[in-house]
């Protein structure tokens, strides 16, 4: 399998990529000899960033790492399985509310609550995906959009979710007597989650299920004619994606200590989707890059004041205009 991947990388026709500086830099990751070096550089950079940039930047970078987890999760749905999901923030919300509610109403404690939150998110994935994944084409996008709004409206109106004001006073977790409460500590928690998310994504992409996703994404009919159960394969993508979303939500909730329905708006779903498309669907480094751009872009443009979102939007449009399959696309798109 490893051989296979290497030979595939070698076969990748380099000339198809424009020979610009950025492309050359990105190509370093596609070169098997330099790959591990590049990974090491990135890991060291992630490890020392909080020491170099101070507290404010650390908080922003933590948010970027949260987005890395969310975007990698949505990438499984959109990039691997080829399903359009416009309500991904719903799973993020389910994870966040589940730990918040369990923390308040039960004596489970944070770590014991996690499995329940994950099961809740997976169940939500099955409930929404089960009936709709049988549909072909874009019905799924509409249903997921509706689902996202239903979850947000429910959170805003139910008593148990604290209605519009949400839930506050969510306790921060401890691990073997170590209380995780400073921004820097949470930064490292999210860095660790991101690393796990990347490893899981790589393993999934190279698995049997990953190949099934590849085939279903390219041609459902051909895949089905060759014995692949397209509904089951898509549902697996949907449920795994929802678990990623829930993991992001769980740690989001304990990091902020308070959540409210507006954290899980349609805009949030769109931002995550935008990061995935911008970076390059299906390609892990591309998706990570997309997550960082979406979070850091508006921050870096803060000096522009009110104009910053306009400039950022124009920048995104230009990127999509010149690199329609993302900044760092997958070969198989």
């Amino acid at each position: 399998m490893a051989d296979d991947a290497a030979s595939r990388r070698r076969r990748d026709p380099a000339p198809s990529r424009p020979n610009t500086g950025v492309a050359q830099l990105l190509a370093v990751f596609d070169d098997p000899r330099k790959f591990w070096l590049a990974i090491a550089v990135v890991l060291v950079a992630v490890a020392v960033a909080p020491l170099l940039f101070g507290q404010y930047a650390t908080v922003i970078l933590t948010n970027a790492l949260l987005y890395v987890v969310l975007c990698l999760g949505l990438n499984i749905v959109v990039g691997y399985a080829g399903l359009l999901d416009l309500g991904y923030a719903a799973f993020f919300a389910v994870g966040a509310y589940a730990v918040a509610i369990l923390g308040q109403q039960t004596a489970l404690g944070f770590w014991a609550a996690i499995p329940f939150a994950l099961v809740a998110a997976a169940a939500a994935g099955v409930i929404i995906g089960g009936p709709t994944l049988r549909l072909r084409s874009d019905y799924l996008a509409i249903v997921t959009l509706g689902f996202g709004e239903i979850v947000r409206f429910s959170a805003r109106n139910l008593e148990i979710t604290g209605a519009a004001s949400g839930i506050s006073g969510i306790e921060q977790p401890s691990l073997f007597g170590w209380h995780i409460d400073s921004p820097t500590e949470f930064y490292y928690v999210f860095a660790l989650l991101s690393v796990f998310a990347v490893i899981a994504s790589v393993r999934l992409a190279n698995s049997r299920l990953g190949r099934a996703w590849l085939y279903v994404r390219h041609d459902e009919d051909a895949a089905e004619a060759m014995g692949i159960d397209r509904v089951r394969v898509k549902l697996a993508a949907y449920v795994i994606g929802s678990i990623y979303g829930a993991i992001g939500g769980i740690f989001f909730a304990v990091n902020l200590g308070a959540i409210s329905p507006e954290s899980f708006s349609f805009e949030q779903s769109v931002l995550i989707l935008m990061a995935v498309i911008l970076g390059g669907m299906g390609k892990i480094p591309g998706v990570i890059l997309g997550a960082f751009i979406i979070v850091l872009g508006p921050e870096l443009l803060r000096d522009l004041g009110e104009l910053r979102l306009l400039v950022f939007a124009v920048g995104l449009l230009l990127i999509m205009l010149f690199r329609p399959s993302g900044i760092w696309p997958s070969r198989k798109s």
Partner: protein
Amino acid sequence: MSAQPDEGRTASDAELLLEVEAVEAAYGEIHALRGIDLAVRRGQIVTLLGANGAGKTTTLKTISGLVRALSGRIRLAGRDITGLKAHEIARLGLVHVPEGRHILRGLTVEENLELGAFTVRDAATRRRRLREVYEQFPILGERRGQDGSLLSGGEQQMLAIGRALMQEPQILLLDEPSMGLAPKLVTETMGIIRRLNEGGTTILLVEQNARLALQLADYGYVLENGEIRLENSAEALRADRSIVEAYMGSG
């Protein structure tokens, strides 16, 4: 995959591999099939003839589970497969090569072939079948690293058939394999089908070129408005003037 003895191929008492009984199907309001009966014996090539819209493609899709049968029975080697899902039927050894070939763009020839053996969990078996397909279609071996969708029409047809063979099907359903091919490639494709059949694969063939189809086939059915209008041995159909005039043009 031992070669079938020749007399077994044509003998009318060979095992019934595929039986279709009074099958009806519809697309929405349109009643596409109005009670189809047909049978394919192991080792045969059977062809479905008929004008456009007669229901040939729908018949294949209904057999392979892509279209749901409203009524009737479909049996594969005696087992009732009516109502099974397409992927389940494929796993039982009935493989449909759909019209339009469905080569996956952006994937290499080899990756396209690997799709065909997706359900085979044993890597050694997958490699052996890949080798067999390359032996049968050397051009696919030469092009194994190329994007499958960039092959010529004839090569794509070979790829589509090769991909189906990766499943080692008991019976292949071929929908218009010669469509869009140059005359020379049409002849070549027909040669491939004959060779596959001689290698032991049973074939149900839908073909616009009725003359060629009847040269290959042991038996033929003529569809009209979703019904079987007549059936006979290919030899008899070739000799039938009305068939010749209706489906093969003059001459």
